């Protein structure tokens, strides 16, 4: 019995992966939309049920690892299998659960789309890839799943492919992710070269190869190989680069706001709850690899991203963009947690964040959905995602309002919510971490605090602007009062999520994160003991100030009279997203300007953001190489042909048709031989 058990779970897990994939295959071959939702939802619900089953049986149990031979290359056999431990089952449940809700939500949200079967198919692919990602026991498979989620994200962002912005955003997302993937790949090379295997359990397990490798006088020595110690750092950075791109961390974050061009349901599932968290997941999976340098890099990147994205979110007006930056910011938070060694905190926050951020997006989707109806009905032209165009919707769409409010509070981290628990876990750990370090490192926890207050501000701003006050656009809205809450398919997932944002799901004690079962599931450190003052002071301080911030926000946005100047430098700095897109532009444009005339036609191909950096420089290179190809390499060949013709002409030159010329030439040739011989004799 004991032996059979693990196999059963592994097989079930495999089924959980394959079910959405089968749905994908079935829908790829589908000719029309009929019944498409059924396949998709059946697939994901079964997956969810299986996940719950596995979760309930294996949480906090011995990990389960089963493998089969995949292929053999040289002496190395790649084995592929499924690794079920706390991290993967948690992620499984999270992914399938949220997916299921988003699937249900999508029934109504995407109802009228003519290509909806494709949409379901893509979602199926995403779910399968994501599940594979979390369960993979081999870094190569993980990488494959990693790219596949990127690919499905590409498909889903560009789902409305006739929209140029959407297809551009999709491409940008894919290419930026590719940059990270290259890092991931390089990481793989290093690990494979160093350890000869890519098996996660072998590498990162309890007495895995990574831990047993030593760094000794600038050499990183494993049992089979050794290389300079810098490669250890490079490996860490490389893997982290993959995570940076996937989790939209600075400097590869610009794709995420653009990805909002996709359907909102997709944004909520992929770009808020699950896929973007894969970066954090990866860091958690391979955590033993990171040395201090890399951890510091992770910390700083996470912190900076969190701060930067939060400040940007302050001034954005597009409802989805605010949420996107919020996501970036929160992901930065999780990275920060990873960097300071609070893996458990990071994962915990990942889990809680998944619920409330998904909910925020779904609610935003509900708003957009409703406004889109209105727009269509009244035949009006206004930006349905601009929060400046909304207001006072609290009464018209109460369910949306309340669910979103719950999610926002969770995001801010007020007590009784899940966010309170996870955010505190990270903050407190950050303070503890800084304590053991030099003074300069105290910047880290304090900045984190600042970020959480900024979070409180921007999300309050969102809520107040959308739901409070009055409807801002007056003219032509005859039917404004026909606005109502979404249909049931959308409403109930939101309500369920709202419930999940509250504390009971995660902890028995609403105020003490230490009691959270998720944290305890990850080999809790002694920091879970309330050993010092931080555990008390910080939650109190955070919440007090957060509430103050919310009040200020309320005064500014709801009560008339207080208004902030929206044209000062800081405001614009924030509104323009720290000018990152521009910086990426300018960094390239200036050097390129000198060549502008020569390559201007390539401008049409230029992509923005960081892609500009590589893209424009790349295009410049490509222009140069094309030029080299045409005028140097090819010309050299053609000139050779010309040379041949010239030699031919030279020989023809003698062929004048006069026999006496021939004779003279012939004799001159002969004489040359004589003369040469003669002189060589003389010398």
């Amino acid at each position, binding site marked *: 019995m004991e032996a059979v058990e693990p196999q059963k779970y592994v097989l079930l897990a495999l089924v959980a992966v394959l079910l959405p994939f089968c749905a994908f295959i079935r829908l790829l071959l589908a000719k029309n939309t009929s019944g498409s939702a059924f396949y998709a939802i059946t697939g994901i619900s079964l997956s969810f049920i299986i996940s719950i089953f596995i979760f309930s049986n294996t949480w906090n149990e011995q990990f389960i690892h089963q493998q089969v031979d995949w292929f053999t290359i040289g002496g190395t056999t790649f084995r592929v299998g499924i690794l079920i431990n706390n991290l993967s089952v948690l992620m499984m449940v999270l992914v399938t659960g949220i997916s299921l809700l988003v699937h249900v939500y999508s029934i109504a949200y995407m109802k009228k789309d003519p290509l909806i079967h494709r949409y379901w198919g893509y979602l199926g692919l995403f779910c399968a890839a994501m599940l594979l990602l979390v369960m993979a026991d081999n870094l190569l498979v993980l990488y494959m799943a990693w790219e596949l989620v990127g690919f499905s994200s590409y498909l889903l962002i560009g789902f409305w492919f006739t929209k140029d912005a959407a297809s551009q955003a999709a491409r940008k997302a894919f290419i930026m992710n590719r940059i990270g993937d290259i890092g991931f790949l390089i990481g793989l090379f290093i690990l494979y070269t160093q350890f000869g295997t890519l098996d996660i359990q072998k590498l990162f397990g309890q007495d895995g190869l990574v831990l047993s490798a030593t760094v000794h006088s600038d050499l990183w020595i494993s049992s089979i190989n050794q290389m300079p110690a810098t490669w250890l750092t490079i490996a860490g950075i490389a893997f982290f680069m993959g995570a940076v791109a996937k989790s939209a961390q600075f400097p590869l974050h610009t794709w995420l706001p653009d990805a909002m061009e996709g359907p909102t349901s997709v944004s909520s599932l992929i770009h808020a709850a699950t896929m973007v968290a894969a970066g954090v997941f990866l860091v958690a999976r391979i955590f033993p690899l990171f040395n201090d340098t890399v951890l510091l890099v992770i910390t700083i990147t996470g912190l900076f991203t969190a701060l930067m994205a939060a400040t940007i979110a302050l001034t954005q007006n597009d409802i989805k963009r605010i949420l996107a930056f919020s996501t970036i910011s929160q992901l930065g938070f999780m990275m920060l947690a990873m960097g300071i060694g609070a893996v458990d905190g990071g994962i915990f926050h990942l889990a809680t964040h998944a619920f409330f951020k998904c909910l925020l997006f779904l609610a935003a989707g509900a708003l957009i959905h409703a406004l889109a109806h209105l727009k269509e009905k009244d035949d009006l032209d206004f930006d349905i995602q601009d929060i400046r165009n909304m207001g006072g919707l609290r009464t018209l769409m109460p369910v949306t309002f309340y669910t979103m409010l719950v999610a926002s509070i969770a995001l801010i981290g007020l007590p009784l919510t899940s966010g309170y628990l996870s955010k505190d876990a990270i903050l407190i750990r950050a303070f503890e971490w800084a304590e053991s370090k030099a003074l300069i490192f105290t910047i880290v926890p304090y900045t984190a605090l600042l970020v959480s207050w900024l979070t409180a501000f921007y999300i309050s701003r969102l809520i107040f602007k959308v739901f409070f006050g009055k409807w801002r656009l007056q003219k032509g809205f005859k039917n404004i009062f026909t606005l109502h809450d979404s249909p049931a398919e959308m409403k109930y997932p939101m309500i369920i999520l709202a419930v999940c944002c509250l504390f009971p799901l995660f902890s028995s004690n609403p105020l003490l994160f230490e009691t959270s079962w998720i944290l305890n599931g990850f080999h809790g450190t002694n920091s879970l003991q309330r050993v010092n003052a931080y555990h008390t002071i910080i939650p109190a301080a955070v919440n007090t100030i957060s509430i103050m911030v919310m009040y200020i926000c309320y005064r500014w946005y709801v009560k008339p009279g207080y208004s902030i100047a929206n044209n000062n430098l800081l405001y614009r700095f924030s509104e323009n997203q720290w000018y990152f897109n521009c910086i990426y532009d300018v960094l390239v444009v200036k050097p390129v300007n000198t060549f502008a005339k020569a390559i201007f036609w390539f401008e049409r191909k230029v992509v923005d953001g960081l892609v500009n950096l590589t893209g424009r420089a790349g295009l410049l290179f490509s222009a140069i190489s094309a030029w080299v190809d045409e005028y140097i390499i090819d010309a050299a060949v053609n000139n050779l042909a010309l040379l041949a013709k010239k030699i031919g002409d030279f020989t023809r030159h003698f062929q004048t048709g006069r026999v006496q010329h021939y004779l003279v030439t012939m004799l001159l040739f002969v004489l040359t031989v*004589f003369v040469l011989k003669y002189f060589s004799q003389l010398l």
Partner: protein
Amino acid sequence: MNMEQVVFYFFAAMVLVSAFLVVTMNNLVRSIFLFFVTLFSIAGLYIFALADFVALAQVVIYVGGVLVLMLFAFMLSNKELLNDLKLTKRTALYNFPAILVSVIFLFILINVIVISKPENLNWLQNRINWLQPSDNSVHQIGIQVMTRYLLPFEVVSILLLMALIGAAHIARKDKI
């Protein structure tokens, strides 16, 4: 300088002068007749090399055959040629390559002759093998041709027949 030498150098001079004139003269008729003189003089030189039969053959074949043939050809190709020839005179410059080549050639040939020291050649030292003025060269050649050189002799006959047929064919009027 004995009589033999006087006559030899006289002939030699004749050969060279007449040859030179043949070559420099633009009038074809005159040059053909001077060519006759040259050939005659060469035949004379052959006698000094104790090759009377060859000298005879030279006169018969060259003077009697070649020269007459040339005259025929010249006459067949009628007098317009003469006018044609007078019209265009060539400058020395135009002939420069020809002169150059000839002079270099001469230089080289004489050089070859001088450095190879013909009098000292190994095989010449065998005095028994020297031809004596008293030898009957016709006799000798007759025997040689019928024995040692029988094959070339026969082959040349075929060659001549072929040349005859071919030349006749080419020169024949194109009518049947």
